[in-house]
């Protein structure tokens, strides 16, 4: 499902003294099957964009196309349910949305709302508990008895259980330990590849954006100021600084190294693995000479 935003503007609490413009003329095209990262400083409008992606917020101006459905400013749309089934959102701190008696029931909540039969929903939930690496015995436990990390996984399972075609992630790993963080991000990437999902990741982590995304969009003060592939985006450090963003660790390291060795590596290394490979190649070459 292609998703496109055209000239989308949004104001919170419109027509009250608390009115606050959050988005100005945002244009964004997310092709089907791509992994799009949206990065930006706190308060740049990332999360507001995200809530438009399944019509939880409707634009005050502009048009959003989600697959074949249009959400136009000021018009009612009857197909919202359909959109919400196809676009799954994992909100920030999704564990806050847990409520049911048992983990399984909570995971089944989403699919059953969309009319999936109970038995099938249960099967999906059991599979997801395994997929997310949760111990089997949690299935019949109350979600409130789990650890923070486990609750997060259950909540993510609750979104995945709807079998969305588009997965929207709002800082899905905030507050997790480094290992859990990597496990979950890798899992999302695996699902992205295996199921052909369109994935949209809103994040503060330049490393995650560099590692996983095909395309990156930068938000700044409610505008979408820059779009492109990661290598382009991270080649212009000055511009990133303007938007109060930083380079990923591996690229920072690469730049420092290039400066000290007075030598350029052939390409920009988006991940530590890529950097290690380039360095190994370089060292081997030097030894041969």
């Amino acid at each position, binding site marked *: 499902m292609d998703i496109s935003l055209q000239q989308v503007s949004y104001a*919170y*609490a419109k*027509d*009250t*003294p*608390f009115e606050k413009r959050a988005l100005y003329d945002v244009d964004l095209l997310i092709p089907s099957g791509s992994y799009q990262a949206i990065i930006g400083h706190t308060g740049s409008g990332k999360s507001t964009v995200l*809530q438009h992606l*399944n019509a*939880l917020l409707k634009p005050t101006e502009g048009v959003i196309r989600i697959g074949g459905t249009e959400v136009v400013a000021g018009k009612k749309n009857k197909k919202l*349910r359909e959109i*919400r*089934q196809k*676009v*799954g*959102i994992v*909100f920030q701190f*999704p564990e*806050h*949305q*847990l*409520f*049911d008696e048992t983990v399984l029931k909570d995971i089944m*909540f*989403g699919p059953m*709302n*969309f009319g999936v039969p109970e038995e099938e929903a249960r099967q999906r939930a059991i599979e997801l508990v395994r997929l997310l690496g949760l111990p089997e015995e949690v299935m019949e436990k109350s979600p*409130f008895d789990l650890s923070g990390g486990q609750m997060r996984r259950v909540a993510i399972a*609750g*979104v995945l259980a*709807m079998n969305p075609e588009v997965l929207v992630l709002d800082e899905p790993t905030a507050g997790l330990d480094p290992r859990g963080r990597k496990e979950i991000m890798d899992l999302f990437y695996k699902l992205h590849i295996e199921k052909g999902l369109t994935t949209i990741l809103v994040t503060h982590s330049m490393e995650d954006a560099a590692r996983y995304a095909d395309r990156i969009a930068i938000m700044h003060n409610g505008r979408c100021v820059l779009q492109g592939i990661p290598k382009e985006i991270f080649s212009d450090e000055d511009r990133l600084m303007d938007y109060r963003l930083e380079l990923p660790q591996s690229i920072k390291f690469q730049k420092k190294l290039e400066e000290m060795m007075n030598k350029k590596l052939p390409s920009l290394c988006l991940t530590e693995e890529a950097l290690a490979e380039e360095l190994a190649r370089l060292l081997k070459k030097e030894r041969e000479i």
Partner: protein
Amino acid sequence: MLEKMIFGRYIPGDSFIHRLDARAKLIFVFFFIMVVFIANNWITYGILLVFTFLIIKLSKIRLYFLINGLKPVVFLIIFTFLLHLFFTREGPIILDWKFIKIYEEGLKQGIFISIRFTVLVILTSILTLTTTPISITDALEILLNPLKKWKLPVHELALMMSISLRFIPTLMDETDKIMKAQMARGSDMTTGNMKERMNAIVPLLIPLFVSAFKRAEDLATAMEVRGYRGGEGRTRYRKLEWALRDTLTLLTLVVLAVILVYFRN
């Protein structure tokens, strides 16, 4: 949706009403509620409306915003209006259709009650819209202070009040967030019959309660850590100052009462 709620919200500003001492405003609203009951005919209710309108103007709060925020109570107002319309049986009949009989007195009472309601709600809203929750509770604490003699835990009550006022917007935001998360999971709170809607509220209420209790616990810990010990000997950072304008404001209320008494039947 929830962002339009105005109860318990404070709009920063610098109007005459904003600058009044919170104690004056509290006393004013308290006695105004009584004064409203003096009115009993068209002239006196008219005077009340004009008076309220003047206060709205003085507070510099946009009328549109105020009316928009009153939507939640409109239902209540209409309900009481209808009650009076149908159940007051005095004066000449003005409508007689099948089993429905409407009397002139009923219509009149219905309108009067609605005006009374609206005026009261608007005035109390203006109180909270123009006064920070902190100064409201400070004022309340000072005004209730004499009751300490009868072992009324005044400081604790004021503290409870300020904490609940403080958390209204937070809980609203929280509600909004959880509602969106559940809507994204296909829960639908706005359509369906009564039973479906009730069922859809459970996934909203449980997380809300859980987080409210967590917040309460965190707050209690934070207060304890900072050595909070309650009211005895506690000094204030912000002092309320009574000025001439506060006395004058209260005097207008006396004038209003006198005028109303003069014009009532």
